[in-house]
């Protein structure tokens, strides 16, 4: 095969890998998008909820084997989906008792909108969850393997009989599930009455109260949904990536980069932002050594924030 052919094969492989991983990044960014992009709450512990989703799925499917009846191929994905509602409840009550003290109506109107206490408080929560996780789960990396994890589809690339594209089955299924969940989220937020109520509460809390909306409850629900979605994404990542309690940190910048890139206030934008970050990460391996692929994401994040803070899809009214 010609050098160009080889390069094309590698390039397409990276591109596809980027899309597959981008779908999952997109989902986790959509989760953060609700919290940060719409509610403007800084949650430093977002990566830790991703981690909790991973461990929940692990214990449900592997540890206690509660989904044995679904079989090893389907179980993990269903487990990931179940992590959603469970972590939703956790997020709801976390907001009610802890986070609400530094958000919403109690700080609305202050100069920084309470961002400073939010940063610190969620940092504390992150530390507790990370290290609590270390205590509870141990530091040995785990993973939720499925029979699909080590199998791949082979798609021949048309231009040369020897060139082929390898699609890891587990990743493909995870990406598809992500897209479906993201789609469901989109419908919930944009078409359902609950979704509109949440958007209204986040858009203008005072006006929403005049409409008769219980804004505090809306915030709790929105926060819970954001956490739940991120947990599902975590469960999906668990099917192909080994994890340990500190893994959240690796993803925090990815999530924020995706949300900012996609434009604040738009969940769809956050999804596309996550997708873009996934592509950047995988394509950067073409030119950078693998250890630096995350550094590339940081550079992208810094560039976006400084050059185009409203992101690709956001309104230009977003001020830094």
């Amino acid at each position, binding site marked *: 095969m010609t050098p160009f052919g080889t390069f094309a094969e590698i390039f397409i492989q990276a591109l596809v890998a980027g899309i597959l991983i981008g779908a999952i990044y997109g989902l986790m960014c959509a989760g953060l998008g609700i919290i940060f992009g719409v509610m403007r709450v800084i949650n430093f512990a977002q990566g830790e909820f991703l981690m909790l989703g991973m461990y929940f799925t692990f214990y449900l499917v592997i540890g206690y084997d509660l989904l044995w009846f679904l079989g090893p191929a389907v179980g993990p994905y269903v487990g990931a989906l179940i992590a959603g509602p469970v972590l939703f409840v956790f997020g709801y009550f976390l907001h009610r008792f802890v986070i609400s003290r530094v958000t919403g109506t109690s700080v609305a109107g202050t100069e920084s909108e309470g961002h400073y206490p939010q940063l610190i408080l969620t940092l504390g929560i992150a530390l507790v969850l990370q290290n609590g996780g270390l205590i509870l789960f141990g530091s040995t990396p785990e993973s939720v393997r499925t029979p699909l994890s080590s199998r791949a589809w082979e798609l021949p690339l048309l231009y040369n009989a020897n060139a082929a594209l390898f699609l890891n089955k587990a990743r493909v299924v995870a990406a598809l599930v992500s897209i479906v969940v993201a789609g469901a989220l989109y419908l919930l937020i944009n078409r359902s*009455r609950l979704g*509109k*109520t949440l*958007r*209204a509460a986040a*858009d*203008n809390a*005072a*006006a*929403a*109260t*005049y*409409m*008769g*909306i*219980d*804004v505090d409850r809306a915030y709790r629900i929105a926060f819970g949904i954001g956490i739940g979605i991120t947990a599902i994404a975590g469960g999906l990542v668990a099917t192909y990536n080994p994890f340990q309690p500190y893994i959240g940190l690796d993803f925090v910048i990815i999530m924020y980069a995706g949300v900012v890139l996609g434009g604040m*206030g738009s969940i769809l934008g956050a999804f596309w932002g996550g997708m873009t970050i996934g592509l950047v990460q995988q394509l950067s391996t073409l030119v950078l050594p693998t250890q630096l692929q995350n550094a590339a994401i940081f550079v992208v994040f810094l560039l976006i924030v400084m050059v185009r803070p409203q992101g690709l899809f956001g*309104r230009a009214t977003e001020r830094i």
Partner: protein
Amino acid sequence: MLTVERLTVAYGGLTALAEVSLAVRAGQFVSIVGPNGAGKTTLFKAISGTVRPSAGRILFEDADLLSVAPAQRAHFGIAHVPEGRQVFASMTVLENLEMGAYPQAGRQEWARNLERIFALFPILAERRGQAAGTLSGGEQQMLAIGRGIASSPRLLMLDEPSMGLAPVVADVIFERVEELHRDGLTILLVEQRVAEAVQSCDFGYVLETGRVVLEGTHDALLADDRIRSVYLGM
């Protein structure tokens, strides 16, 4: 319908309202005017529940409003069209109206109310899919009023609807509000601009630095020159 008795609102050493009393009867159009800083918006905020009064009572059809949570008051039939419109900028015109119909009464009469809103403000029908933040000031005001109507209110409260609007546009808004009143809606209007407010009202109150300094029927107020001195200071 609405009775405010000796309402006092004070915070941080500042008295925004001092022993204000007023009444709105069913079917009436009541206007509250006064220069800036007179306490008009504070009054509305007390009725809506955003601000807690330090003394006094607010009764809505014999129910003690102060014991009702702010988010619940809309369900009683009080629609508040806030100062500065406060539309949900990131949502479409139709979605804004849907949010207005959040209370039970609004949801039940949704179809009928929507028809009425579009008849009153045809431009909203035209722009129903547009994001509310991209509307002009006048259109946003119409949307805010439409949102208020969508809740099938018993009382419609309007806070300075003409603020920031060109006089021609403000005229149109006032015309529509008068039309609503003729159809039987009870209206409580707060305005900085006196003429329209006094002209349309059945009864009016003039506030200055937190107190009611003048009150009277439409005819009585029009004949009173003291309003000018209240505003200009001389």
